[in-house]
């Protein structure tokens, strides 16, 4: 057992920290839940371009595709530090799902064409998997891609397209063979969002961001924008979720909030003493601290399993179940500590911690992206424990 990083890795961490300290204002605040504030958005784009400028977007990719060919553990460290700094990085779909799918299934030409622009932050990608009737049951998606002999014609609708109107390319899953059983007839594509026939309607979320319905009306997708083999899309989709290795982070976000809250509790009074001396508060701070330690060990375990190619226990679902169930609980516990003023938002001078508890509460409601906790429990029970379906 060894949970230390090598001195090279620690140096790498220092390099990232130095960069972040230089590029981000002290006490930088960023709504990770799809901020739509224009100034914030411009800053995020600019910041992400700086990250790209260092080559860190394609950190682990092969050199020929714009990467630095660095080991997965370096990416883990990078993400720990990005999240610790609450850094406004965007284009997660490009960095993540799309790049992973391209690396796994793309041709050499496709990789050369799509990956370097992502690494340079020249193309912004959105996610095109979820549909109104295909959420947890993603494989029931109905958006179609029909082959004309020359190109694909896409029709249908996607939903919850985060930052869709900002994006250039859509990582699209569409049904290419309606005759096949549902997981089989799916293929994945890079769809140009500027193409004729693409339109959006806004979906504002309660945490202050904009997602979208995305509609396709006879959108033409060139043949060379299909990734991998026709009809094997499901495997690429599933394989892409964790292909890049674990990205630490939830524990860093929780650690930040815990630190901010502990300090706040030491300065604010209640019953004529600092809040931190209040047993009711202490009991709840301890709960938050345990949740943070849990995130930390899950994160480290995931890294260790990945590095040693050990199959995770419980079908890999435990981590997801725990972090999803923990998310609303963490923000609710904060709200119990802060008390009635936890409903006050940042614009008000009465807002504790500039209204962050209220924002955290709203963001904490989202634990469904990527699958509901209920579905993940079932994965854990059946795939992880071998219980019958």
């Amino acid at each position: 057992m060894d949970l230390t990083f090598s001195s090279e890795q620690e140096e790498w961490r220092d390099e990232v920290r130095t960069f972040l300290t230089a590029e981000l204002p002290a006490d930088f605040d960023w709504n990770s839940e799809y901020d739509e504030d224009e100034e914030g958005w411009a800053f995020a784009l600019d910041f992400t371009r700086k990250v790209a400028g260092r080559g860190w977007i394609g950190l682990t990719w092969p050199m020929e595709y714009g990467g630095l060919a660095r080991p997965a553990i370096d990416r883990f460290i990078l993400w720990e530090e990005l999240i610790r700094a609450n850094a406004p990085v965007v284009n997660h779909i490009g960095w993540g799902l799309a790049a992973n799918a391209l690396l796994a299934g793309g041709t050499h030409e496709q990789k050369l064409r799509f990956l370097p622009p992502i690494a340079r932050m020249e193309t912004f990608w959105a996610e095109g998997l979820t549909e109104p009737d295909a959420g947890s049951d993603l494989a029931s998606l109905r958006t179609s891609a029909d082959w004309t002999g020359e190109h694909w014609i896409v029709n249908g609708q996607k939903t919850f397209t985060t930052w869709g109107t900002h994006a250039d390319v859509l990582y699209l899953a569409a049904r290419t063979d309606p005759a096949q059983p549902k997981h089989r007839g799916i293929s994945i594509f890079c769809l140009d969002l500027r193409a004729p026939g693409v339109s959006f309607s806004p979906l504002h979320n309660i945490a202050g961001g904009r997602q979208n319905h995305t509609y396709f009306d006879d959108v033409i997708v060139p043949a060379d924008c299909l990734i991998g083999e026709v009809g094997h899309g499901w495997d690429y989709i599933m394989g892409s979720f964790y292909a890049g290795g674990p990205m630490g982070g939830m524990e860093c976000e929780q650690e930040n909030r815990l630190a901010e809250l502990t300090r706040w509790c030491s300065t604010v009074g209640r019953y004529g003493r600092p809040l931190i001396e209040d047993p009711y508060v202490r009991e709840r701070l301890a709960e938050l601290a345990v949740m943070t330690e849990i995130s930390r060990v899950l994160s480290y375990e995931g890294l260790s399993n990945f590095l040693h190619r050990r199959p995770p226990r419980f079908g890999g679902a435990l981590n997801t179940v725990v972090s999803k169930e923990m998310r609303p609980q963490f923000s609710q516990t904060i709200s119990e500590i802060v008390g009635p003023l936890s409903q006050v938002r940042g614009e008000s001078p009465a807002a504790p911690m500039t209204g962050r508890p209220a924002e955290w509460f709203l963001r904490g409601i989202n634990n469904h992206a990527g699958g509901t906790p209920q579905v993940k429990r079932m994965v854990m029970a059946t795939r992880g424990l071998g219980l019958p379906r």
Partner: protein
Amino acid sequence: MFDYDLNDDQRELGATARRVFEQAGGLALARELFETRAYFSRALWRTMIELDWAGLAVPEAYGGSGGGILDLYAVCLESGRAVVSSPLIPSSVVAAHVLVGAAEGNQRVAELLGRLASGASIVAPALLEPGGVWDERGVETRLERSGGTAKVTGTKVLVPFADVADRLLATVRDRDGVSIVLVDPAATGVSITPTDNLASLPLCAVVMEGVEVDELVGRAGGGWPQLAPALARGAVLRAAETAGAGERILEMTVEYAKSRQQFGKAVGSYQAVQYLCTDIGIASHLTDLLARRAAWLIDTGRPHQRAAAAAKLHASRAAAHMTQRAHEVFAGLAFMMEHDLHLFTRHAKHWEHDLGDVRHHGEELVEALQREFVDGSQR
């Protein structure tokens, strides 16, 4: 005869309330108020006044209709269901009850109570301070008397309807302990600022700097015994609102779970979703039962501290729990503003903390246990 149900008059009152709130716009009105940050609908409040609800719990002698908390209970189940923002609980219940206790022989208070009961005036209870605790120890606002004048200095937070109130009913402290005063919001030294909050409710910060006030409402140092039964009434009715909201959330959630198909069947056929739905039903129904009994105990003059505290404690937890469970069922859909659930979620965060949160009512409960089992007095 032993009967746990509201009586026919109360149920009729509830039916009226449901109709009135629906006609006023129902959830569409709640959405509009939230989106435009209009805080509350004066038109709807006027309708409620015309129906005599502003004076429902005020004795006839002071211009009210002499009803009870169970009558208001029927109304509040419905105001919760439609997520109504109105001065009913803070002004017509909490402030009114304090004023009723002080009105005898006090012409000024009696007159204010009359205006309150008629709907002409709103009286805003200014109780909570930045420490965020609901009990007596939380009152740090100072009352200073010199010569013939009394002056108040301090800060109150989350004061409902302070910016539209005729008077603020504030708790203050001096060497006698906690007393209650009426503050003119237009008086020199008062500054009132609406506070941006999750539900866009009319909650204000009130800063008072040497504000002159008239004589006390009630006895010097006797503020808390005056206020406690008023808070209990408000808390029980806030619990009724939570129960009413829970019923509506349950209906929405079950309807969706029946119709939404995933993996070839309705999601409501999965036990995981059935647990979420039954959680909502349990939280909502128990809140109703607990609060309804507490209201009955209050109306019949019986000891009610345990019942009322248990009701609001449970309601506070239910408010958070029911909305969270519903979000789990709706997943991405109700994370969007276009779905109505978030209106409940935002208000629930207010209900959770308003008029005593889990912590406050837990303390109330244990004090009652000690009185009953250790000191040997009655429940």
